[in-house]
């Protein structure tokens, strides 16, 4: 097992990474081309699929041709991320714009040490099957490492048993990698209750009593966002929040010092790590975004021309974009 791992790690970390990435890209392109081809054959004139009668040939059991576009998108994003990571690893400098909220993390942790108070980290109120919780925990890993280096205590009340266990593993390893294994105490990472407002009652109660110097809210939040943020504000804590729940963003924006909005939240862990490979994934995200912008512009243009002068070619283009590239 160890040998296999070593080989794979070597592939992922050394120069042979380039070969693997190239191979992956070629493989992905081949697969997507064949998938596209098969979908083209199965419902031949591309443009007229909407009115064409469904063909009687059944889809191959190994691939759902209705999801070709989705598959291509994932392959595209995967390839964009892979190539960006490859470029980053091969030493090409990556410039990432400043994200104020993340620049503030070190200071916020340092402030807690100076004041001799604790740091509160709330990893959201959802379970491990929510990707925001996973993103929150990766962020916890970074914050806990900084806290271990600064010798600050970090309290993590959790709303789910599994999150508690995962958070304990994460923080333990962070202390270990910071060389302060002795500073770790599992008792600071506790399970409170699965109930949303039971959890809130406890967390705000202990906030008022223990007055943490810094509060992090990173994960999936619902109504409790403002209760936390206002209580934190009342006790004068520095507050940094991050969530992808767009309904809660206004409250964090209004009541916290710094807020990571949507995508920034997912980028946080990579940004803080400073590792080229991780920063490379951010570039990959940007490539995806650029593609979306171009597609939207294309679609808008096509549909506008369609309204002004309905010409067959443009109709064809427009339908092609919608049906094939966006699966609409």
């Amino acid at each position, binding site marked *: 097992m*160890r040998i296999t791992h070593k080989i794979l*790690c070597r592939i*992922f970390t050394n120069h042979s990474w380039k070969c693997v990435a190239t191979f992956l890209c070629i493989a992905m392109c081949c697969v997507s081309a064949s998938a596209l081809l098969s979908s083209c054959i199965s419902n031949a004139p591309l443009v007229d699929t909407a009115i064409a009668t469904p063909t009687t040939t059944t*889809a191959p*059991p*190994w*691939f*759902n041709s209705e999801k070709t576009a989705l*598959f291509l998108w*994932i392959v595209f*994003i995967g390839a964009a*991320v892979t190539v960006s*990571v490859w470029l980053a690893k091969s030493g090409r400098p990556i410039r990432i714009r400043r994200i104020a909220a993340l620049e503030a993390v070190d200071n916020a942790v340092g402030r807690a040490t100076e004041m001799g108070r604790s740091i509160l980290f709330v990893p959201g109120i959802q*379970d*491990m099957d929510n*990707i925001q919780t*996973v*993103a929150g925990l*990766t962020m916890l890993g970074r914050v806990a490492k900084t806290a271990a280096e600064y010798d600050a205590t970090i309290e993590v009340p959790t709303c789910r*048993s*599994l999150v*508690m*266990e995962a958070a304990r*593993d*994460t923080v*333990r*390893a962070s202390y*270990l*990698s910071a060389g302060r294994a002795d500073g770790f105490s599992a008792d600071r990472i*506790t*399970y*409170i209750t699965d109930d949303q*407002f*039971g959890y*809130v*009652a406890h967390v705000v109660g202990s906030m008022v009593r223990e007055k943490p110097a810094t509060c992090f809210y990173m994960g999936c939040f619902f*109504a409790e966002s*403002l*209760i936390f943020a*206002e209580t934190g504000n009342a006790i004068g804590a520095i507050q940094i929040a991050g969530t*992808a729940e*767009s309904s809660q*963003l*206004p*409250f964090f924006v*209004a*009541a916290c010092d710094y807020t990571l909005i*949507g*995508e920034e939240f*997912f*980028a946080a862990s*990579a940004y803080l*790590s400073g*590792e080229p*490979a*991780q920063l490379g*994934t951010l570039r*990959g995200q940007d490539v*995806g*975004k650029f593609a979306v912008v171009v597609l939207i512009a294309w679609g808008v243009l096509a549909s506008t021309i369609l309204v002004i002068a309905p010409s067959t070619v443009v109709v064809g283009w427009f339908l092609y974009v919608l049906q094939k590239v966006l699966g609409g």
Partner: protein
Amino acid sequence: MKRIIPMWIAIIAGFAMMLSSFVPLAESAGEMFADVFNVVAAIAFVLGAGSLAKQHLEKLSRRDAGWGYSVITLGSFLITLFIGMLKIGIHPNPSFPQAAYSGSNDAEGSAWSWIYEYMITPLTSTMFALLAFFVASAAFRAFRAKNTEAILLLVTAFIVLLGRTFAGVVLTGWFPDWASGLRLENLSIYVMQVFNTAGNRAIMIGIALGVAATGLRILFGIDRSWLGGGDA
């Protein structure tokens, strides 16, 4: 080794799940996982309960300040658990009287529904209701016209707040028909359908890409901080 195996479990499971979405035969894998996850989470409750009991028992044995509150927490936890797990005082379902535990805990008049109605409901919904106070203080403090962004935030909030009550009708209801689009209630819907839709769409597209990149970082083994720390 302790870190390598989990990493590969995650990588294999993740790619398998991703591919399963495209294979017609395996499309229900996601649903099956939801079931498996719910069961694992329910079993893991034992760990949460253990942590809860441990923290409060420790407080109790150390006679920490406020240990009396720990007694309340532990006592109410154990009593509720006892009543609920054993379905204390629950009659069998009239359709299946032969099955002793066929009755539902929620039956009116049971001890369980008493706990629900007179403890959980008032406590949690009052906690929820505190938000009404906090929105007021947050609006007072944070909605100040410091710069363009803040002005936009507060003007929009203003329009929606007024447009969603009778006050909007009183203030702008007299606008003539050709200017009905400027009536507060219509303006607030216009804001919702145009600006709010645009903002939310962009946030959603960004989140989708963020989720994809985060997922790929995990599945490529680039980000291992969820396993704790940086490198294995």
